């Protein structure tokens, strides 16, 4: 089972790197993470002098990607604290580049030559966790369960961990590649029922083919039509299924109300935060359906 730190004893301090999309667009994710961490008494500070992990740009040049991820890791290493990531892409990117650099001296010395121009050096000892991993492993289910003030009894959510949280297996992912359970367990701990969906939100193809991306997102939303909403944990899913909700539903011919929200927004509501404190007013999908059911 996952590790657990008993209530009030979280000794660790973290640095937070929200990533491009959470900090420039999906503010409801960053804000709900910040307020949830504060409520759970987790100490953290923002990482400074940071940059995009580079994975979205990997299609242009893989060396560019390696440089950006290595730079990000070298900056965060200098804090000497574990790092919290919010984005599946960031987490996959750092995991992958860490593995590549550890196994390739030529690549390592090339990137360190570039980093040296900024007085940086990649050592390879950064510890980083996705917020979902942190909630499961460092905070633990007992503490979460004891913090719940508003249970989601009778609710059923469609759980969407997002591709890169559990794939590809060979770079080392936090969760099982065939049956990821972390996000499922985290939803269940709030009293709700959960069903798993491993589909792709379509963000990467949306960049080159808008209608295909929207169709994938719309089809994914349609799959959740009999649930109380889709629970996500990656800003790419947020862009495709929440921000593009209306367009995606239109393209795939779906008419219906499926709230799409981040797990940290759901958790925030469960531990007693107000809809405003988890920034539900920034969601574009019909999250009011959910708050109405909750009577808040």
């Amino acid at each position, binding site marked *: 089972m996952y590790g657990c730190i008993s209530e009030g004893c979280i000794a660790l301090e973290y640095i937070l790197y929200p990533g*491009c*999309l959470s*900090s*420039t*667009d999906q*503010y409801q994710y*960053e*804000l709900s993470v*910040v307020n949830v961490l504060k409520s759970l008494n987790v100490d953290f500070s*923002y*990482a*400074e*002098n*940071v*940059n*995009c992990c*580079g994975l*979205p*740009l*990997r*299609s*242009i*040049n*893989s*060396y*560019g990607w390696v*440089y*950006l991820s290595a*730079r990000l890791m070298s900056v965060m290493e200098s804090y000497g604290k574990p790092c919290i990531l919010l984005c599946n892409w960031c987490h996959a990117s750092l995991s992958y580049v860490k593995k*590549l650099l550890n196994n*390739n001296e030529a*690549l390592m010395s090339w990137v360190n030559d*570039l*980093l040296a*121009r*900024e007085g940086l050096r990649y050592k390879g000892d950064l510890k980083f966790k996705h917020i979902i991993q942190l909630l499961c492993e460092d905070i633990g289910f007992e503490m979460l369960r004891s913090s719940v003030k508003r249970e989601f009894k009778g609710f059923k959510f469609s759980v969407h961990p997002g*591709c890169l949280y559990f*794939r*590809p*297996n*060979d770079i080392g992912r936090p969760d099982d*590649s065939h049956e990821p359970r972390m996000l499922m367990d985290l939803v269940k701990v709030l009293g709700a029922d959960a069903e798993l969906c491993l*589909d*792709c939100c*379509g963000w*990467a*193809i949306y*960049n*080159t*083919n808008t209608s*295909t*991306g929207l*169709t*994938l997102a719309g089809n994914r939303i349609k799959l959740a039509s009999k649930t109380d909403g889709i629970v996500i944990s990656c800003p790419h899913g947020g862009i495709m299924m929440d921000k593009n909700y209306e367009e995606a539903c239109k393209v795939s011919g779906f008419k219906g109300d499926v709230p799409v929200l981040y797990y940290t927004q759901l958790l925030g509501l469960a531990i007693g935060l107000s809809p405003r404190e988890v*920034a*539900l*007013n*920034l*969601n574009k999908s019909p999250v*009011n359906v959910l708050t109405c059911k909750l009577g808040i």
Partner: protein
Amino acid sequence: MWADVTVLSEKASVELVRRLNYFPSNVNVFACLQCGKCTSGCTVMVLMENFPHKVVDMVRLGLVPELLKSDVIWACTQCQKCRDACPQKVNPSEVFIVLRNISIIGGGSVPDTYTSMLSKVLEYGFIQDAIEIVGSDSLTYDRLKLGLSQLNGPKDMDTFQANCMDAFQRGA
């Protein structure tokens, strides 16, 4: 020993097949059994008629120039299902990435969204600048109004940009 399959195509370019190794990404097209597991699970197979096992086959037949001219190399959403499904660790999703990289290094066009993201990274360090969002209450929000700290991009932007330019042009 294996026959040199590249002779199967007059247009085959051994050099281009070799260039698949321009980046150390464990692409292993010659191990492919053509079982089709990658294609059967492909997120965009139906929508975009992408058949990853055929792309892998074309690469080992030396038909890289044909692929570089085709839109199929951009018809992949990088969901990594094929990579996990492959019994031979061929790594089809990486094949798509490497083909895109080779295409661009060789002077092929970069899709607009990627050009825009790269220019934002050079300007701010992130793939886009912080945008304003209109909430369901019809009010406009930005980081400041939400009480979030300012973006913390690279401090030495000149060196960061120069390094990006070097790294993103490697191989060209």
